[in-house]
C-alpha cells in the first residue's frame, strides 16, 4: 500500500461518558491512495459524519491512529499542534450544500483559503481562477453565489475544497441535492480532480445513483467499517 494518501487504523470515538456514552466509532480502518475516490456508505446513525469530523480535525477521536501522507496526525492523541492550519492546508471539505460565503463573489470564495494562509490577494485569486477554470466555472468568477445555479455552486464549492491542493478531500453527501445528471457530473469532477492533483477523496453518500461508480467502497455499520470492491463502472 502507498505511504501517501489516508490511512486510518483502529479509530474509536465515544460521545459522552458513563451510562449515556455513545460509541459512534468502534473500529474504523480505511486506506485511500492518492488519486483514488472511495465511497463511504452506511445507514443513518452509523457514524459517517463522526468519521469525517474526526478526520477533519473538528472533533477529537477517543483512540486509534490516522496518517495523512507520511505524517501521523493522530495516535491516541493529536500529533499536530495547529489543527486549524491542518484543516486549512491539508484537508479540503465539500459539503452536502455548497455553503458558499454569500457576501463574497465566486473567485474570492475560493481565494479566501489561500488568503487565510497568508498568500497575497492577487496570487490567491490566480490560484482560485486556475481551479475555477479546471471546473469550468471561471466565466462566473465575478458573480455572487446567489446568482449561480445549484450545479455551478457545487462546482465552486469543490474548487474551494481543492484550491490549497490538499492531499485529502472529505465530501459529505456532495450529490444529495442534485439530480442524477448533475450528481454524476460532480462525481466525475471529483475523480478528475483526484487524478489531476493526486488527492485522496472520501465521498460519504447513500445516493444509489453514484454508488456504482466507486471502485472501492467502505461500508460502515454501528461504527465498524468493512471494505468491499465496488462496481467501478465509470460514468457512462
Amino acid at each position, binding site marked *: 500500500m502507498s505511504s501517501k494518501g489516508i490511512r486510518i487504523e483502529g479509530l474509536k470515538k465515544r460521545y459522552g461518558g458513563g451510562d449515556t456514552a455513545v460509541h459512534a466509532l468502534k473500529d474504523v480502518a480505511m486506506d485511500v491512495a492518492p488519486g483514488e475516490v472511495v465511497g463511504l456508505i452506511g445507514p443513518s446513525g452509523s457514524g459517517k*459524519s463522526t468519521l*469525517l*469530523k474526526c478526520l*477533519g480535525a*473538528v*472533533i477529537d477521536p477517543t483512540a486509534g491512529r490516522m496518517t495523512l501522507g507520511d505524517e501521523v496526525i493522530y495516535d491516541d492523541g493529536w500529533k499536530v499542534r495547529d489543527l*486549524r*492550519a491542518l*484543516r*486549512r*492546508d491539508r484537508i479540503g*471539505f465539500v*459539503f*452536502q450544500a455548497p*455553503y458558499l*460565503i*454569500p*457576501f*463574497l463573489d465566486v473567485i*474570492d470564495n475560493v481565494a*479566501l*483559503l489561500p*488568503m*487565510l*494562509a497568508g498568500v497575497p*490577494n492577487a496570487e490567491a485569486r490566480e490560484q482560485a481562477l486556475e481551479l475555477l477554470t479546471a471546473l469550468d466555472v471561471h466565466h462566473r468568477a465575478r458573480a*455572487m453565489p446567489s446568482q449561480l445555479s445549484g450545479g455551478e455552486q457545487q462546482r465552486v464549492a469543490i474548487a*474551494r475544497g481543492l484550491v490549497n491542493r490538499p492531499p485529502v478531500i472529505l465530501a*459529505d453527501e456532495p450529490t444529495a441535492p442534485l439530480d442524477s445528471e448533475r450528481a454524476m457530473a460532480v462525481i466525475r469532477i471529483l475523480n478528475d480532480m483526484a487524478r489531476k492533483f493526486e488527492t485522496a477523496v472520501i465521498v460519504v453518500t447513500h445516493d444509489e445513483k453514484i454508488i456504482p461508480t466507486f471502485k472501492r467502497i467502505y461500508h460502515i455499520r454501528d461504527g465498524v467499517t468493512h471494505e468491499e470492491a465496488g462496481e467501478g463502472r465509470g460514468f457512462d
Partner: protein
Amino acid sequence: MISLAGRDILHAWGKFVFTGIGLGLLIGVTLTMAGVYRGMVDDGRALLDNSGADLWVVQKDTLGPYAESSSVNDDAYRTLLAMPGIAQAVNVTYLTMQVRRGDLDVRAMVVGIAPGRPGIPGWPPYLVAGRQITRGHYEAVADIASGFRLGDRVAIRRNHYVVVGLTRRMVSSSGDPMVFIPLKDAQEAQFLKDNDAIWQSRRRTGANPAFNRPGVPDLLDAVIASQSTNAFVNAVLVTLEPGHAPEEIARSVGRWKRLTAYTRPQMEEILVGKLIATSARQIGMFLVILAVVSAAIVAFIIYTLTMDKIREIAVLKLIGTRNRTIAAMIMQQALALGLIGFVVGKITATFAAPLFPKYVLLVPFDSIAGFFAVLAICVLASVVAIRMALRIDPAEAIGG
C-alpha cells in the same frame, strides 16, 4: 487578505444604510439634547453678559432677580451710588409674561430699563435694527426671536408699545426673548391691577373716613395715587470702578444696606447650578435612555446579522479562519454601523438645531465625546454577537 466585514457590508448595504439612518436619527436626537443643555447654559451666560453688570443687588437673602423673585426699593440705587468703588447703579425690572401683537402671543421677558443712554447696565448693548428707546413711555426694543418687527405695536398689559429697535441673542435663562421697555412703564405693568381691582380698591379707600375727609378734598386723590404707583424694582445692576474687587464690594453691600449682592461667578452658579440644574438632570436622563436604546438597536442588528451567518461562520472556522478574524469582522460591522449613524446624526443635528424654538448650541466637544460614546456603545453591543460567533462549532458545518 480581504476585509470580510467590508464585503459583508457592501453585500447587505441596504440593511446597513437603513439601520444606520435609524440609529443616526437617534444619535441626532442625542446630540440635539446635549445642544439644548449647552444652549441653556449659553442663554444664561448671555443674559449675564448682556446685562452689563459687575454686581447684581437684590432683596436680602433671595436668589433674585432671575432665579427667585426679588424686590428692592427703587431709591436704593442712590445709597449704593454713594458707596466707594461703585461706578454705576441702575434699577431694572424683569417680568416674564405674554406679549401680544394682534393674534400673535409671545412669551417674553419684559425688561424695564432706567432712563439714560445706551451702555448703562440693563440696556441692550447693541441693536441689529432700528434705534434705542428715546422716549420715556410706550417704546420697546424687542429681540428678533420674539418675531416682532420694527414698527409693530405690541400690547403689554393694558398699554401699547411701538417696537423701535431689534436685538439678537437677548433671552432669559429659559430662552424667552426679551422686550425692553422704559422702567416706569415696566414697574406699572408689574404691579398693575385690572380695572375691577382698581375700582374695588378705590371704593374701599373712599369708604374709609380717615382718607375721605370733607375738609381736605385732595387727600383722597393723593392716597389713591400713592396706592397705584409702584416703588419697587427687581434688582439694581451695579458696575464698579476699576481696581475694586467685586467680592469685597458685594460683602459690604450685604453688610450695610440690608441687601444681597452677587458677583458674576455667583450669578452664574445660581443660573447654571441651580436654575437649570433640574433641566440638566432631565436631559442627562434622556441621554442615558437614548444611549441604552442605541446600544440595544446596534446589539440587536449585529446579533441578527450574525445569526443569519451561523452556517457560514461554521464553514469559515472549518476552513481555518481564526476566531480573532471572525470577532474582528463582527466588531467592524458594529463600528461601521456606528459610523454611519454618527455621520447621519451629526448632519441631522446640524440641520435640525436652528429649527428648535430655543437656542440649541452644538459644541465640538459634545460631537467628539458623542463619537467616542457611539464607538464604545457599538463595541459593547457587538460583544453579545461575538460571544455567540465564538461558540459556533466548526463541526456544525459537516452536519449530522
